[in-house]
């Protein structure tokens, strides 16, 4: 759980840093003098202005939050579940994909994700056994369907 005021203060500071970095990046960007471009059309012009605007927004966000006495709580009902699902999703998208065939990666992902979400919704421990079988079958069938759809209907070379 996180207080919205704290979150805004932290994000405001991040924005100030991001804005300064963007302005500095724009300022030090190549001005292409060798190509004799018009000085008003240097590539860093808009990033510089935008950086100042973002930094100013960060300052305003921090300043307006200083005045706030009470603020709402940012709460996630099941942070453990969310974190586990995030890890499962990231592992599938960033690690499995491209390293093992798409069909198997997707089957494994769908089965695990379905089981994890389903076991959270399941009322009793005993209902988890059948859920696991259902999740595995569901993963295999859906992965086959999605693979076939993209490979044969949309002619995509799957990762």
């Amino acid at each position: 759980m996180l207080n919205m005021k704290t979150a805004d203060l932290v994000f405001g500071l991040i924005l100030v840093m991001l804005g300064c970095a963007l302005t500095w990046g724009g300022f030090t960007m190549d001005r292409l003098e060798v190509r004799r471009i018009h000085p008003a059309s240097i590539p860093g012009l808009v990033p510089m202005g935008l950086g100042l605007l973002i930094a100013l927004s960060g300052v305003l966000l921090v300043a307006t939050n200083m005045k706030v006495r009470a603020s709402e709580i940012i709460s996630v009902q099941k942070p453990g579940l969310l974190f586990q699902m995030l890890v499962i999703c990231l592992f599938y998208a960033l690690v499995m994909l491209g390293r093992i065939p798409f069909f198997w990666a997707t089957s494994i992902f769908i089965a695990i994700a379905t089981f994890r979400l389903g076991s959270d919704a399941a009322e009793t421990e005993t209902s988890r056994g059948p859920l696991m079988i259902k999740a595995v079958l569901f993963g295999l069938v859906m992965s086959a369907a999605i693979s076939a759809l993209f490979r044969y209907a949309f002619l995509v070379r799957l990762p």
Partner: protein
Amino acid sequence: MTSTFDYLSVALFELTQPMMLFHVVWATVLGIFVGSLPGLTATMGVALLTTLTYGLERDAAILVLICMYVGAIYGGSRSAILLNIPGTPASAATSLDGYPLAMAGKAKQAMTLATLGSALGTIVGIVLLVLIAPPLAAFALKFGAQEFFWLAVFGIIISGQLTSNGNALKGHIAGFLGLAVAMIGSEGIHAHVRFDFGFQPLSGGIGLIPAMVGVFGFAEVLTTIASRAGVITETTEKARKGPSNVFKLLSYRYTIFRSGVIGTVVGILPGVGEDIGAWASYAAARARSKERELFGKGSEEGLIAAETGNSAVVPGSLIPAITLAVPGSAASAVLIAALFIHGVRPGPMIMIDQPGFIYTVAIMLLLATVAILVFGVTLTPVFVSVLKIPNHYLMPIVFTLCVIGPYAISQRLFDVWVMVAFGILGFILRQMKYPMPPLVLGIILGTLLDKSLRRGLIISDGDILPFFTRPISAFFVVLVLLVVFGGLFRRRKQRFQEE
């Protein structure tokens, strides 16, 4: 010279071929399913379907996307009425009166009124699209670099202001972050690569589709898991009870017309979207209603106003999307990307390059409207059973499509990484109450803003004055100032009242 009627006739003939009608049927029904399922939004549906229609012929692909868009916005009303869970944010206002009506045993009547309201709202929007878009495109030909710069600024500011739910600063910050993302990659004037940090895939910039699928798809999956929303309850019986009374609509004709116009105007405003259209129409209907006290307790007028308003936003949002390449809503932003993919260049030249295109889009919208009229009511029992699909089966599939969808377009794993990064960013920003449409609008308008500012400065030899003195530019400057100071004034007034 070809007349409007000729263009409409040709479009109607071409789009009523059996194959096209088949596309209308499946895409609209799929759209209604997507819209009715809590956790799946219209924007997500259009973004995912864009990746699936890559191989289709131009008109068929755009038809499919428009049917998905219309169907999904309408579909949100099904779960809003039956379950009090808006299928899409656009249907939040619908649930205020739709669910009380369903609880009172008038679910079927509520769904019929919502269907007719949606259809009529879309039709009002279509008429305004045909009337407004061609002259707007002709007028936009007078736009120079300065005007396009201010148009982009206005888009970011108004979108941030209207979607921010009371804190305009957060809306504007989201827009600025979107603009910052657009600064990555090769810029449009000298082809200089910015902010790639020596990482080659970044030199092409951040793709709009992966970013949008992340922000509206993956972030939605995470939000649904985090909130555990969308747990379906049994309400099937209510769907079959209660008399329908189509003729009631006649007594609400002014509400329908007013909501249709409000929805279309909201749609024209850059990056604002259907939910604002619904709320604005609902508020206007309530302010003028003789049965004001019924609003929120099962008012048929309120239900019709909300549904007419959100549906009219769809054609309205396509007006600036087609004529100015500035999206009126998040879903129309995806449509712009899809238009580019299929070789259509939206913008002021559209009436010169492809003069019949606006009318083709109008007929596509009309076919989608007919489809929601037919399937919206007849397939209600099927929708009710689909609404029972548990999230633990649905969410892994949605995430898989979020992954493979962006990959299918470019066949680069980098786009999957972009989708994931934007999904996490979108989720965090949503939790902190930052609206997502300005972020996406910023990504889209960043290039236009950047090129227009520098082009304008080159034309005036570095002089900034023409940005303020050219008549249309000056008009936009006044608009931007009005929006900013109007917002500040409202906030101050609100604080004063609270104290």
